């Protein structure tokens, strides 16, 4: 039988010709290593307690390939004044709404300067709009949120931008009720975000003027199909004329809508519930805007995952235009000229779609002639 503990766990670091070097010279080195690991694993909590991380820094750490979070950060933390209408969501709605045009029409309707903004981002995930709204509503009043849920792939856990934007200790209410695997994913995201938070705390990151300031956040892609800039052609077909009543979901128009009764992944559903709850608490009007995607162009009905009004109550408004009606009179090539890929409108489509839904938006938005 070999002697028990013949080979020591810790040694002088050299090892013998027969045994591997010990991981640590001394027991104390091992303890320090454990302390370091523990500190790093607890870094989201520790940096939060020490005030080294803050919500503004989280937006500053977002890379541009996930969206222009500089613009979103400025809207949340730097701009003042109430927002009449906020268009919020992933790239599908981001590229679908001509925000200045809506602002102009709404101002005319209200008889005062209206404030309309789009806060869009890349990649799907309802965690992101929830976090943006939570931060925005802590700083500014918003009257109406127009939200859109794309028919696309969803992550089972935190979305790519959601992973980078959230910090585990920042939203305890919503995180507390998440499934354990989502909690762990989110915590891991926060641990990985700590180095950037500490860097932001150590030096002021350079910010530049957002390219979306002039367009009030609207994304007008100058791209042809397959996101090819060379195939983009300016194309301005006359937009179809719809009455507001035709586009807003009601007993009269329910035949125009098709609900798949399909639930999103549990994580996303959780954030959707939290988002709606947050808006109710803050007395913010919620409109679900259906943005048609190119592959739905032959559909006679507005296709949605669920009947959001039935789920969240009559205070919620649904707006949508059946794709076949929207693209009526346009052949396949002309329809493609309005898109930069199968999911997104380009500049042409942005203006075309906005004009089509304008009456419904103006009708649905709660009108307040005075700006309190």
């Amino acid at each position, binding site marked *: 039988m070999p002697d028990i503990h013949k*080979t020591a766990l810790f040694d002088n670091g050299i090892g013998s*010709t027969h045994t*591997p070097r010990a991981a640590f010279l001394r027991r104390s080195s091992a303890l320090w290593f454990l302390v370091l690991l523990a500190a*790093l694993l607890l870094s989201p909590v520790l940096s939060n307690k020490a005030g080294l991380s803050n919500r503004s820094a989280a937006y500053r750490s977002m*890379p541009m390939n996930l969206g222009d979070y500089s613009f979103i950060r400025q809207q949340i933390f730097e701009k003042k004044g109430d927002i009449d209408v906020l268009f919020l969501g992933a790239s599908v709605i981001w590229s679908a709404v001509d925000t200045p045009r809506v602002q102009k029409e709404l101002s005319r309707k209200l008889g005062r300067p209206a404030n309309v903004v789009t806060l869009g981002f890349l990649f799907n995930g309802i965690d992101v709009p929830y976090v943006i709204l939570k931060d925005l509503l802590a700083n500014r009043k918003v009257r109406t949120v127009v939200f859109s849920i794309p028919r696309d792939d969803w992550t089972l856990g935190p979305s790519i931008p959601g992973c980078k934007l959230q910090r585990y200790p920042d939203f305890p209410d919503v995180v507390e009720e998440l499934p354990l695997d989502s909690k762990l994913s989110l915590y891991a995201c926060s641990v990985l975000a700590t*180095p950037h938070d500490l*860097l932001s705390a150590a030096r002021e990151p*350079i910010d530049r003027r957002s390219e979306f300031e002039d367009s009030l956040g609207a994304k007008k892609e100058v791209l042809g199909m397959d996101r090819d800039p060379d195939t983009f052609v300016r194309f301005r077909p006359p937009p179809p004329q719809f009455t507001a009543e035709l586009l807003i979901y009601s007993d009269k128009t329910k035949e125009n809508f098709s609900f798949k009764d399909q639930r999103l992944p549990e994580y996303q559903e959780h954030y959707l519930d939290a988002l709606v709850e947050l808006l109710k608490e803050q007395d913010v009007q919620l409109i679900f805007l259906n943005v048609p995607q190119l592959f739905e162009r032959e559909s006679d009905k507005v296709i949605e995952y669920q009947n959001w009004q039935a789920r969240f109550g009559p205070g919620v408004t649904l707006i949508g235009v059946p794709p076949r009606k929207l693209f009526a009179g346009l052949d396949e090539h002309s329809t493609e000229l309005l898109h930069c890929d199968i999911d997104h409108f380009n500049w042409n489509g942005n203006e075309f779609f906005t004009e089509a839904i304008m009456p419904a938006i103006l009708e649905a938005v709660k009108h307040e002639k005075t700006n309190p």
Partner: protein
Amino acid sequence: MSNLPLFILVLAGYLILTRIALKIPSAKVRLPLFAISNIAFVALLSLQTRYHDWEPEPIISLGQEAVIRHLVLVGMYVLAVTFGYVLLRKLAKRSGALPWIAFSYPLLILVLFKYFYFAWEPLLDRLGWDDWILTATVIGLSYMAFRLSSLVLEVRNEIVEMPTLSAYLGFAFFLPTMIVGPINPFSVHQRSLESDNFDSGYFARSFLRIAVGAAKFLFLANLANQLSYAGIFLDQKPHGPIDLVVAAVFYYIFLYLNFSGICDIAIGIAGLLGIRVIENFDNPFLARNIKDFWNRWHISLSVWARDIIFSPLSKYLIRRFGTRHTNAGLTVTTFVVFLVIGVWHGVGWRFALFGVIHAAGVIGNYYYTIFLKKRLGKEGFRKYNKSRLVHVIAVVATFAYVTASFSVFANSYNQLGIIKNAITEGFFISGN
């Protein structure tokens, strides 16, 4: 290997079966079983290799045909390595240039696959195969080639006896060091295979090495990478010069944690089998000059380069041109050594430049030492070397030099352009 639970399961199977094989008293049974176990598990793990595409899939999920094709190719890989054994046996102890054929064979295979991979393209096209198929087959070739060529010299210089075929294949395909080294000499490998010094302390020590290595490789390296070049400069935002310093320092830290972490795991796994693998790192951040750095960083590669290139080439040059030209001979040899080290890391000018920068660092240090010895005298030089202040300055300067050198190693030409634009232009444009 991105499926961690499966990887751990396969690894556990490997450890149990290989440990059982090593318990067999008869070497005639033990060594072949050891070789078979290693080859089988290398083949099994290589089936998890993901080819690079938009939606990478492990080979095992590509269907029966792909799996059979892959296993046949791995079989051919084993045959090619076996041919190296035939050359070793026939030529290693012969006189003249013949041993160099055996020595060069593994390196030639490496060069053919790593640097002339385009030469295979017509054949691959004819077979209708993608490029990744060969890459997925010859896993671990870089490290294996260096180990096997070194083995030829160990046999020739009578450091070890001529191995049996099974000992050779067991060494060549030794799973823990296949992918990332260290480049373990056969003498160390074989000695620990033959000795029975495995005890509970040895087991605990090996297990702790794996745990620490996993913490470094999976966790700490990922954290450090958040502030390296990729973590900072690819966000398409403007950055100040200070960010370049932060990225450079954290890239060095990331590289150390990543590479030393996986070497810790390899050494620990080998340790669980009672097989010793030489160390690859020894506190490189504390190096006081570039020569010292290479005694602390990727040690097994430095030792290989010293024994296989530096010693014979410098001796040859000094013999050929006389001792009057010793300094010139050492300078040339150092450049050759570091060029080889540079291009061994990867194909392209930036890896060669990395080698040249380090050669310049070693040669600069060599001439600076000669200068100091002349200027300060023997006693003065001894005092200089013992000065704490000089030591601190030297360590910081070496750290800065190595950190800067890794900028060409870490970033492609395009990425260097992106970094330059992010700092000078304040916005993201492609470096091309």
